[in-house]
């Protein structure tokens, strides 16, 4: 009996690590930033507004901007116009994103990845940023069209990260409300 009880405890504890938490909760204050400088950051802000969730948006956020933040929402997606608007190169943007997510992890700030651009924010140029953001995250919300090849599902499975796939960008508002 004692052995069975011990086994049950081990299995229950083990399931926490084997199966990602889909009932994860994030805390405020929230900082939204971009990985790739697409305008999806603005769309993400609109989604949070729709779900009446307060946030601060800084597409070019750096480590210092994480002060007092409990959740970092990363919105990945490459835009040449966005990089041009920000006046930086692709390599500089990758360096900034890597530094930001590493700093967030060091400060125990949870990272939520929000991919809402669909196929327009996938492909060779975007996937570098998608990978960085996905692998660094604690949870992902992804629009179905951007995950047709299961790119994000595979990362979620390999890294044991929770993932919520929604049909349309507009559905992401409800998914965001669920986790805050």
């Amino acid at each position, binding site marked *: 009996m004692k052995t069975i009880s011990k086994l049950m405890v081990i299995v229950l504890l083990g399931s926490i690590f084997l199966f990602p938490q889909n009932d994860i909760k994030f805390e405020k204050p929230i900082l939204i930033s971009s990985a790739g400088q*697409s*305008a*999806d950051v*603005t*769309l993400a*802000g*609109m*989604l949070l507004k*729709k779900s009446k969730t307060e946030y601060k948006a800084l597409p070019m956020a750096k480590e210092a901007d994480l002060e007092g933040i409990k959740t970092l929402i990363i919105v990945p997606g490459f*835009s*040449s*116009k*966005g990089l*041009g*608007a920000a*006046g930086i190169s692709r390599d500089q943007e990758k360096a900034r994103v890597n530094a930001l997510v590493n700093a967030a992890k060091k400060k125990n700030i949870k990272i939520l990845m929000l991919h809402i*651009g*669909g*196929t*327009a*924010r996938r*492909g*060779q140029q975007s996937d570098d940023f998608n990978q960085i953001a996905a692998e660094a995250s604690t949870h992902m919300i992804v629009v179905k*069209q951007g995950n047709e090849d299961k790119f994000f599902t595979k990362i979620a499975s390999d890294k044991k990260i929770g993932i919520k796939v929604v049909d*349309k*960008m*507009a559905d992401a508002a409800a998914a965001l409300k669920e986790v805050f």
Partner: protein
Amino acid sequence: MQKHHYTAILFLVATAVMAFIASKDFLKMYEHDKVFPSEALTKTGMLSDYLPNLKGSNGDTEVYFFDSGVQGGTTLVLGGTHPNEPSGYLTAVVLMENIKVTQGKVIVIPQACRSGFTCTDPMEALPLGYYLKSKSGDRYFSFGSRVSNWLDQWPDPEVYTHYPSGQKLSGFETRNLNRAYPGKAKGTLTERVAYAIVELIKKEKVDVAFDLHEAAPEIPIIKAIVVHEKAKDIGAMAVLNLEFEDLKYALEISPQNFRGLSHREWGDSTEVFPFLMETSNPIQGRLRGRTNADLIINGVDNNYKIALESGKLRIEYDPEGEPLSVRVARHLQGIHAVVEAFNGFYPERQIVYENVPSYSDIEANGLEVYLQ
């Protein structure tokens, strides 16, 4: 006279005949397409009303006003900035032939780059125009060049220096209206057209302005709305609302260091919220095969299909094609969504119109029902 003199004379006569026949087609491009503005039309002006030195030139073009007489905001819809992008021109035509404005004012310029409609780009084998069915039978619409006619503005410099930023681009861009803003009152023809449009925006106190475009299927900004940073919240709201209607648009922010474009310069030099919208146009594609009116209207290209089937195509391409009717429908729905979003943010400056077909209207009924 020897035998070769007779053949030379014969060939000269043949030259004259061929030149005459070719001339007829080229001169036909200077004729204006017939348009039938709706009953809501309150005034027809000319662009030279805003810059008199355009009068009598090929840069002058019609400006159509639909004023409800009820206090509200003003929107400007610009088609034909690039005459080789037919959905922009046709969207403006469908809008002005159906619209009924109940609050505020709508201004439409269907052929912003009038000079570009008088020629086509060399070495592209482009058609001079195309026919569409309408309520009044077959209607002819001109197809043109991306840039002003070089008969109107010559020569191109080696390097085009944008006024006033000093930005340097290829000399060819000197005739591109969407690289000429904010324009120059005594500049080249294209710069003067750009200047007149900006003057119109200022004098008419335009709140929301649209510049309608198309791009090759391989260009990343197709199916996109490009906004000046001050308009990004309106753009974002519009894109979200379009999603509810199952219409996917990417939102792009205008780069501050790329000068001369409408979405940059209109926003920088006036109070207007500028929006540039793009649809996908296979006749501009580099992979395209047979280049003819059918490709404009049906948007189906076999070469793209072959590329898609090979698995080597790295872009989104619908094998059913991108018909002109769908591209016009996207633009019309996009305009509506942006105007609605603007009305939400600025309720004291509402722009309200009706009777313009929605995306689903055109999907169900086709385009011809909405062309007079």
